[in-house]
């Protein structure tokens, strides 16, 4: 369930390792890889503007090559990160590049949409994405919600933490447990300053 991680790593590996092994790593590869990682970091931490800027620069670098599959993968990573933050959409960026995507990417896009299955890694983002996908598909459990909250809290990822806490708050409020809801709201207030 850690395709984003695999994607991320494989993207990085493709970018970097393809160049290594006798020849120099290419400039666009290095730039794009670092920008993608920065994007993820900033986006999950809640620094949206920075993240968007980084993503834009990564996309530009990858677009230099004219390889649509690479750009599509980048869009998928973005989509996954957004999914982890419970921002569900249909990945318009990826859709625009569906023509160039390969099978792997297409399968992953389906997975993100809640339709396919994917075996990801054990890294936090992969697990978070997995929980989000399960929420989208309606297969989530309360334990899963708590786990997601814990993951986001451990990583200090504001955006998904706020989102998942919001889910818990709504659940509490819907169940009539105003006290818990207030507690959760206080937590949310703490995070958002």
């Amino acid at each position: 369930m850690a395709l984003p991680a695999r994607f991320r790593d494989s993207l990085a590996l493709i970018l970097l390792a393809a160049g290594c092994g006798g020849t120099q790593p290419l400039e666009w590869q290095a730039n794009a890889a670092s920008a993608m990682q920065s994007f993820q970091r900033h986006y999950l931490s809640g620094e949206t503007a920075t993240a968007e800027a980084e993503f834009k620069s990564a996309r530009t670098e990858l677009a230099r090559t004219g390889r649509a599959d690479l750009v599509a993968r980048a869009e998928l990573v973005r989509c996954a990160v957004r999914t982890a933050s419970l921002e569900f959409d249909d990945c318009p960026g990826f859709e625009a590049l569906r023509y160039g995507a390969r099978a792997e990417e297409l399968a992953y896009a389906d997975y993100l949409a809640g339709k396919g299955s994917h075996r990801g890694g054990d890294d936090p983002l992969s697990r978070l994405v997995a929980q989000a996908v399960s929420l989208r598909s309606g297969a989530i459990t309360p334990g899963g919600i708590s786990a997601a909250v814990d993951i986001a809290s451990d990583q200090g990822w504001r955006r998904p933490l706020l989102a998942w806490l919001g889910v818990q708050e709504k659940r509490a409020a819907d169940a009539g447990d105003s006290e818990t809801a207030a507690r959760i709201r206080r937590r949310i207030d703490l995070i958002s300053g």
Partner: protein
Amino acid sequence: MERDGFSPIPKNLQFRVGLLLGLAIMVAGGFILYALYARGTFEATQRLTLVSDNAEGVSLGMDLTFSGFPIGRVVRISLADDGRARIELEVPRKDARWLRVTSIFTLERGIVGGARIRAFSGNLQDPPLPEGAERPVLRGDTQEEIPRMVATLRSTLENIEQLTGPGGSLQASLANLRAATERVSGRHGALGAVLGNDEDAKKVVAAIERANALLASMSGVVAKTDQRVLGPGGVVEGTQRAVDQANAILGELRESLKRVDKILADAQSVAGNAKAATQDLGALRAEVDASLRKVNGLIDEVNRKWPFQRDSEIRLP
């Protein structure tokens, strides 16, 4: 009875004789006056006493010279109560301005001739020498140096005699040198001379022969080593290749460092932009709320499936 008339007596004889007498007396008087003037009887003088332990060579009327010009005269030489000689000089006042309180007086006596009294004034701005001043005079007597010189010369000659004499060190050194040269001309030559006896010399020779054999065997080893190290496929070549590889790696590293630099630069520029953004957490929350609203339906589904239970769901961190 008078005798007159041998020769006619001129009328003005008296006048002429008187004239002659007058001339003679005047000349004599002038001469005496000039001599007195020359001796400085009419000059104001001041007295200067020089004290010395030995006034040999000093005579009355001797000059005191300053920068080669005589400015004073010895008028009296006497022996003081403490056994030292007192030389009294008279210095005309017009010349006394060359003498100061700090002036130094010397009495020199060369090998030939009499003594010379000289005055030296280092600083002419010092106060002038007072009347009746008493000063010590520095003596330099070459004639005294001669006996000393002779004595030194004599002792030097005696030393040389001792050195070169029958029991002297020079003879001993020569004897040693002779023995050494004999050994040098012996069987083992200079080696025997250095070591002193023949056995040591033989040992040294044997050692040298062994060393020679060792060198001969080593030369084969050296040839092989040469091959191993320097030949094709040898150590040196391998090292060269490794060095080339290391150079390549270094080059790659340099490039990646350049990239890191670029990343850092980008991060800085981004951070500049992001500083404003990070603080906008209210906006973040608003965004999250907005996205959550879209997810409300999904949450309701979860609610249906899984009723909310406080204790199991909300885990205190």
